[in-house]
């Protein structure tokens, strides 16, 4: 409710032209929601707003942000990946076992995973398949592979990974730095390069891109390969934080990643996505998921509900702004 009233009250104070303000507000909404969650945390517990506070609170935000970016690439092409969570889990199992014991085999497997994603993109384009069903099937495949590889939780992350995930850079907490890098890299790649525009165009108006002579097959493959790559990075970072693997470790990530993309201002169709927004959306979800609720002394039973409520409030605010956008 607070998000809504803040947003609604805002235009009067902003020194922007009348035509710009709703669109600008819309773009700023993901950041506003993050600030709001941070303010709430600061109000509830001042000590949390510190170098160590952020390092602790945002630790798990890195794999969530990476998975969200992976999902964003798929959504860019008007598809939806229902298998990203299971995929992250499988990558985690490979990381905690093969990557430590037989680094070459482990590396090859992870590269192979990216290859499988690229192949899925090709298959979906070639047979014109609904991505929801294909990734639904792949969800079972990754889950099965993960269970075969690591029937019981265990294994251990490679030492280099543990070391890099617990890095303590000066001044800026590591998760914040990582989020900035992820956002910058994907923003530049997807929004600022000419091929990035083609990729977004393949979701916005595939026919136009195809008639302009670009290969839609290649665009689909690139989008899926990027998703695979970021999925692998998500699994790696997750195991670097949790130190051991578990076949079910990534299960919640499918829904979180979709929610993160939408929270960050992405749309399901039309290639309208925002890399920076997606990362911010993931951070908001990660913060709202546990630290905020722990400080609010909310019973664990209701934490999932709070996540849902935050999604609803932010999206309601966005709908309000969009309506103004249309009216003007």
């Amino acid at each position: 409710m607070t998000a809504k009233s803040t947003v609604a009250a805002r235009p009067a104070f902003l020194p922007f032209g009348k035509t710009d303000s709703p669109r600008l507000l819309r773009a700023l909404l993901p950041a506003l929601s993050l600030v709001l969650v941070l303010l709430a945390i600061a109000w509830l517990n001042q000590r949390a707003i510190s170098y160590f506070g952020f390092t602790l609170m945002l630790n798990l935000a890195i794999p969530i942000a990476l998975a969200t970016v992976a999902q964003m690439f798929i959504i860019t092409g008007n598809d939806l990946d229902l298998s990203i969570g299971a995929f992250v889990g499988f990558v985690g199992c490979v990381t905690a076992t093969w990557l430590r014991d037989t680094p070459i085999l482990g590396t090859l497997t992870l590269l192979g995973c990216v290859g499988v994603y690229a192949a899925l993109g090709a298959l979906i384009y070639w047979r014109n398949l609904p991505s929801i069903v294909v990734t639904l099937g792949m969800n079972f495949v990754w889950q099965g592979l993960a269970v075969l590889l690591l029937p019981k939780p265990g294994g251990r992350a490679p030492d280099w990974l543990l070391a890099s995930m617990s890095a303590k850079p000066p001044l800026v907490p590591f998760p914040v730095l990582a989020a900035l890098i992820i956002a910058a890299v994907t923003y530049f790649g997807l929004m600022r390069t000419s091929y990035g525009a083609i990729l977004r165009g393949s979701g916005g108006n595939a026919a136009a891109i195809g008639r302009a002579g670009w290969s839609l097959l290649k665009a689909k493959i690139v989008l899926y390969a990027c998703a695979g790559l970021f999925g692998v990075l998500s699994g790696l970072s997750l195991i670097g934080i949790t130190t051991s693997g578990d076949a079910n470790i990534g299960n919640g990530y499918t829904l979180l990643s979709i929610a993160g993309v939408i929270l960050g201002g992405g749309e399901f169709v039309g290639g309208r996505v925002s890399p920076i927004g997606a990362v911010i959306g993931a951070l908001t979800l990660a913060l709202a998921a546990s630290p905020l609720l722990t400080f609010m002394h909310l019973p664990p039973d209701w934490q999932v509900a709070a996540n849902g409520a935050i999604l609803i409030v932010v999206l309601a605010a966005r709908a309000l702004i969009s309506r103004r956008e249309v009216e003007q």
Partner: protein
Amino acid sequence: MMAVRRWLSTNPWMWSYLGAAVVWIAAITFTRGYGAGGMLIAALSLAVFTVVVGIGQMFVITLGPGNVDLSLPANIGLSSAVAMTVMAGDDRLVALGLAAALGCGLAIGVVNYLLIRALSIPPIIATLSASFIIQSIDISYGRGLQIKPPPGFADFTNIQILGIPLLAILTVMFTVAAGIALQRTVYGRSVLAIGQNIRAARLAGIQVGWVRFAAYALSGTLGGLDGALLAGYFRGANVDIGNEYLLASVAVVVIGGTSVAGGKANVTGLWGAALFLVLLLTMLNTFGVSAGIRLLLTGLVIVAVISAAGGEKKRA
């Protein structure tokens, strides 16, 4: 051969029955014919639960791209708990409990639609957020709930008439009714029209809002019914009882030949797809494979079937 291929390409739902037949034959070849009938009966009983939610999901998916009900698992979980609490193990309260479960599901469907309509949230995210909240309610309300279903209700979910499960017979009748509603009534035609082109449907004077509302309400209500039936069949409510029906409900709809792009639904295919999925699991169980292999093969078969059936022809 060509005629068969042409027929298959115009009737994509046949793939699901073919698939079901193939896995069934593979399973009974392995057991040398032993338990062939029993396997089918068991598959029919289990397919019922997927078909019931599949019908609701089909109406929703047919509304067009982006329409999907992700709140079904949470809905089933909560409704099963509500049904068991209201029935309280007493045969006289069965009707009341069923009504409560249906009401619970209906309420969830209404909330879903209100989120979509009043807040203009995309349906996937609206039903997802709703499912988070429902899940929490279920966890705090239904945890440790150990109420057995009334004996009469539990028996009802297991009755067989001439060897065929009564629930399956009723569900087949319901499926036929749903098929008629979809193809032969103004309401069903409206759902299809909205899925094909929502703008054209609106200009043609269809009350788009009401039609969509009814589809989400129907999906919610069927989720509630499924929750009650599952609790009866598996002898008790459970927070996780609906978990597998998120993937299953979407899978049977799409494998059954309904278009994910909306506007084209297939009721007949639902049964084929549900039987296919259940028999696939039965087959893998008879082979005695481990859980990992079972998941892996299930996934590969789903991908293979959908690839073989192919998507819609690209529009030029």
